[in-house]
């Protein structure tokens, strides 16, 4: 009797397929292990970062508490800086006036007086009342004021209200605004 294996080729095919499945299975096991390790690693990293952030938060609270102790110092310091800024602003505003008065006081002859001042501090406009003992001195003053070297320090310079006073002196108003870039300005 002769044995005839009718499933020979099928068995060979199944064996081949099983081998292929096993290979794929091995690869998928590797991938699964890698995925599990990655998941565990990420969970660990999250835990570490959370812990680290918690420590930073704790440090922030401690530092904030320490800063709170200096609160009055901080307030005083901010007031000090704000005040210095305001004082600088006010010094700048009044420096215009002081510079102009000083400048004209030295510029005019000794018998010519600055007998009145009006200073609009916000606008930086200064009105000076100039009094001269006689008309010839007044002409001298006008000649001085026309000089380009004098005019260059001021953005505007207008003369008005020329009159003869009861005491025979002559006076006029000189309205001017000082050029901020002028070298006349100093905080004296």
């Amino acid at each position, binding site marked *: 009797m002769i044995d005839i294996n009718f499933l020979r080729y099928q068995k060979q095919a199944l064996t081949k397929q099983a081998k292929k499945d096993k290979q794929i299975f091995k690869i998928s096991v590797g991938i699964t292990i890698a995925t599990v390790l990655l998941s565990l690693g990420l969970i660990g990293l999250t835990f570490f970062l959370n812990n680290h952030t918690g420590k930073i938060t704790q440090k922030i609270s401690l530092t904030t508490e320490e800063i709170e102790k200096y609160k009055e110092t901080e307030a005083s310091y901010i*007031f000090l800086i704000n005040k210095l800024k305001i004082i600088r602003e006010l010094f700048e505003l009044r420096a215009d006036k002081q510079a102009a008065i000083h400048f004209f006081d030295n510029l005019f002859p000794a018998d010519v007086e600055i007998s009145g001042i009006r200073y609009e501090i*916000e606008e930086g406009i200064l009105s000076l009342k100039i009094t001269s003992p006689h008309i010839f001195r007044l002409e001298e003053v006008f000649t001085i004021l026309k000089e380009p070297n004098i005019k260059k320090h001021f953005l505007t310079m207008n003369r008005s209200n020329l009159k003869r006073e009861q005491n025979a002196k002559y006076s006029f108003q000189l309205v001017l605004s000082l050029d901020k870039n002028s070298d006349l300005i100093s905080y004296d």
Partner: protein
Amino acid sequence: MKKNQEQNFKLFYNNRKYLLFTVLLIWLCGVLALFVIKPQLAKIKEIRSEHGEKNSELELLVHKRRELAQVLTSDEFQKKEKVDEVLPSHKPLLELLTNLNQAAKKTKISFVNLELNPGLIASPAADLNLEDKNTSTRTRQAKKSTSNTNKNYDYIEVSLAIKGQTQNVEEFMRVLEKIAPLTTITDFNINNQEKTRQELQSSTAADLSQVSTATMTILTYYYTQTIKISSSSRMPSVGEEELAIFEKIQELLPSDFQMQTTLQSTDLEDIFGIENLVEKMK
């Protein structure tokens, strides 16, 4: 029928069990990727971002703590009383009156007239009221300011008339602008009084100088700005110009004004009729 299905499954399991396990493992990987890896990655990203922010916040706070410690020993802070004296945080009415008296004594001029309208007088504790804890930094507009710009200061306006020798009047103006609190003359008129021949003949050599009367308007400034303090806010910096001004104000003359903190005299009459009031005050 059912038996056939079972047999088919057993046959499939025996032949393709590795394929089945592979499918299960792939499914497991998918589940892990979807429900573990993806959320963890998102969480890590969020934590890292938070971590960065907190680190910057901590750096800022540590820097601020260091700055605050330095502030305490800085020259500017040590001499802050001078700045407070130049620009006080309350209406400096008493200081202004004392200064006028001080300048008048120094320059030997006399007052003819003095007009002022100080309004409400703030308490010396106004400093504390200026600290605004809840709102952002506010500025108060100067009441008498003609411009629309916000100001962090206000002023007391005083009109006065003085009389004295011309050079003394001029000296009075100079002294007045050099005494703390910061004062500036905004309006000024001087009248030189000519002496009659009779007056000149009767006057001594010392009286020969010209007598002037002057009217003027002066402004004395005080601080009104409120501030907000928070532990995370940055410390303001001092610029070169502010440092120059800080040096400049040290040259201003100190005011003679002294805050009265003690009872000068208890020789009082109990005008309110409160029992034992005078004894208690003594």
